[in-house]
Each structure stands twice: as structure tokens, then as C-alpha cells.
């Protein structure tokens, strides 16, 4: 085991400081060290998007960023986003459109969809598909997820 490095970061608004091995990636840090298991781990090489986390405001692959790189930064996980109520309408749409199913991809999908709707308030279905193309879902065939994101966007525009 290599020397532990002290990491101090804000996670969902709470300051945490832990000694971590440099090889620990960010998603394992939040899951094992902080016991925030809402972020999932799928492929561990950046393909599936299940581990999507916000680092310094931007969505990233939690498996492709080291925990030591979050030192001095801000981390937001699905737990923080969920508890803040910021995406409750998106979560309701996922539920009513049955866009969750097994739930493995759902936290990553929600974080990605939230980032999309911040950047682009009225995405087309094609834009939604392109934006979530880095998040794999093996249940829904994506149609329900695209529906849920589109519904949320329309509701936020007062068109729902």
C-alpha cells in the first residue's frame, strides 16, 4: 500500500477530510469511505456512465478521476442532488415514465440529465439522446428515459 494522501473536499455541502490511497478513484471514495452508495460502479473504465458524479460543478466519470484530485474541490453525488430537491421533478418523471427499471444506471442518468437541462433548457429528443449517449441502460431501450427528460424540460418551460 502506498502512502495515504490527505484529501479535504466538500461533499454534498459537507466538508470531509480523509487519508486516501492515491489509487482510490472518486466513486470508490464516496462509496466506501463516505458510505454514499447511490453512485454506482459498472464498467470501471469510463464506458457505462453509472458512476457519474459532479466534481467542481461538472459531471465526470467517478471511475476516471482519482479521489486525490478532488482535494480542495466540491463533489456532489446523487444523494446531495436528491436531498436538495433540485431534481425532484426529474425523478418524478423517471418514475411516472418507468425510466428506472433495474435502477443500475438511474443515478448516473439523473445526474447527466440534470447537467443537460442546465446547459440546454429545451433539448430536442436527438439532443437528449446524444447527451446521454455515454450512459448505458440495459433495461429500458432508452425511449422511456428520453421521454422522462423531455417531459421534465417541457414542464419546466410551463408546457407540461
Amino acid at each position, binding site marked *: *500500500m*502506498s*502512502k495515504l*494522501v490527505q484529501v479535504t473536499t466538500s461533499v454534498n455541502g459537507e466538508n470531509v477530510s480523509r487519508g486516501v*490511497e*492515491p*489509487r482510490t*478513484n472518486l466513486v*470508490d471514495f464516496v462509496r466506501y469511505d463516505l458510505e454514499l452508495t447511490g453512485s454506482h460502479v459498472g464498467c*470501471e*473504465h*469510463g464506458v457505462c*456512465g453509472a458512476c*457519474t458524479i459532479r466534481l467542481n460543478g*461538472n*459531471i*465526470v*466519470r467517478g*471511475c*476516471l*478521476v*482519482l479521489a*486525490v*484530485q478532488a482535494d480542495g474541490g466540491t463533489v456532489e453525488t446523487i444523494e446531495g442532488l436528491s436531498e436538495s430537491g433540485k431534481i425532484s421533478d426529474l425523478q418524478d418523471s423517471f418514475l411516472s415514465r418507468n425510466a428506472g427499471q433495474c435502477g443500475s444506471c438511474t443515478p448516473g442518468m439523473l445526474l*447527466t440529465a440534470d*447537467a*443537460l437541462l442546465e446547459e440546454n433548457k429545451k433539448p430536442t429528443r436527438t439532443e437528449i*439522446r*446524444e*447527451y446521454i*449517449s*455515454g*450512459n448505458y441502460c440495459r433495461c429500458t431501450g432508452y425511449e422511456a428515459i428520453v421521454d422522462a427528460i423531455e417531459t421534465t424540460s417541457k414542464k419546466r418551460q410551463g408546457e407540461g
Partner: protein
Amino acid sequence: MKPAAFSYVKPATLGEALGLLSKHSGDAQILAGGQSLVPTLNMRLSAPDLLVDINGLDELSGVKLEGNHIRIGALTRHVDIENSSVIAEHCPLIALAMPHIAHPAIRNRGTFGGSIALADPAAELPACICALEAKIEVVGKGGERKIAAKDFFKNLFDTDLKDGEIVTAVEVPVVTPKTKLAFDELSRRHGDYAMAGLAVTAKMDDKKIENINICFFAISATPVLAEGAAKILNNGIMNDGSLKKAIEQLESDLDPLPDLYASSALKMHYAKELLKRNLGNWIS
């Protein structure tokens, strides 16, 4: 899988980073965006003793217009290039390529210099900078040097970078009103690795084509310039006949390497189709 154990250091200056790379020659790897390095660590395809995290070197970041070229710092993240008005206005070829590079979460971390230094054969940016006749600035213990993009990419994941050297920036010429550009790629899904891709730059003066660079990626071990096809199109007004000849010429210009998804013959078909689709609409 989880990476093998390594030590980690985040230098505050470029000099410190170069010192560390020189001291730990062969055992250290540079961590920039990490979007290609970390997967290889996770899969234990790579197990360096030391990671030198250059993300603290702010001087390596940013896009600057400097006269007739743009200087793109190596540590500039894809997302910042995608959102850069300087790139959109003065180097639209790179702006066209950006949405094809992986996915938003990866573009938020991945860096311009990292893509160049890695030299993935399916990567968009190496082909763009070859087509643009860009220059790559590197620095090492022996000092700075600039390398023409077409001389930089040597083989599969192999470049002209010497041990201990770091890519610091890429100098890209700005477009003029006569510049013509094209960028396109074929992939199984948006954001996936390209099965074949094309970046083209040219000067069009009163319909006459000059200085055309036709660069393919995901075809060979490195970006490949179709020089024979360029020769056919240069110094003439393109028509259906000359474009057809240029497309046929690709049989001699390219020697596609098959990959998991496409045979050599299929890649040749894709390359021809890309040239047809993208240059066909230049014919007026």
C-alpha cells in the same frame, strides 16, 4: 478492476514536473485529464510507480489568439474548447470535431494535449491538427522544441515525444475567408470510437482548390494524409470527374488496418464514402 498501487505528486510548476519526470524516468506517467490513462490503470494495462498530476500547472491551460495562429494550451479541457468563441470563429475545424469526442462527462475532464500526446489512432484531434498543419510545442530537460503535426505521430500510440518531455501547447493557423473545411466520422453510436473519420482543410480561390489536406483517422496506426487524392484535387476546380478520381486514388493512398468492428475492405469503403459525402457538396 482497481489500479495497482502508485505514488502521487502534484507539482506546482512546470520545472518541478520536468524534474520529477527526469528523476523517475521510465517509472512515472503524466496525469492530465486521465480519461485514457485511468482506464489503463484500472485494467492494469499500465502500472507506473508514480503519477505526476499536471492539473495544477495553470500556465498550460487556455486558448489564445496570437496573430495568425491560435495557441491552445495542452491542459485546456475539451469542454472549454467546445465552448470557446475564439475556436469557433478562428478554427472551426476543431469546433466541428469536438462534439464527436466521447461524451460530455469525459469532455469535462479530457485535455487537448492529452489527446495529442496519447496518439490514439481513432482520436479526432491528431487528424485535425495534421490537416491544419499545426505545430506541437513540447518542453523537456533539453529545452523547448516545435514539431510539425505530420512528423509527430510515429506509430500506434507512439509519437516523437522523448522520455521526460511534455506537450505544452499546439499552434493552429487561423482560417481565412478562403478556407474550406470538412469534418466527419462514422461510429456505431454517438461518442463511440470512430470506425473511420475525415478532417479536410483547403484554400478555395475562385472555385480553384489549393493546399488541400485530406486526413483520415481510425484507418491506420496514425492519422494519414491522402496525398495522391490531394494532388488530383489541387490547383483545379473540383467536378464530379476529379472527385471520382480522388476517391479511387484512396485505394493507393490508404492501407486500412482492420479493427474489432471493421475489416480493411469495410474501412476502405467508409473512407471513400466519407470523402464523397464531404467533398461532394463543395462542387457548385
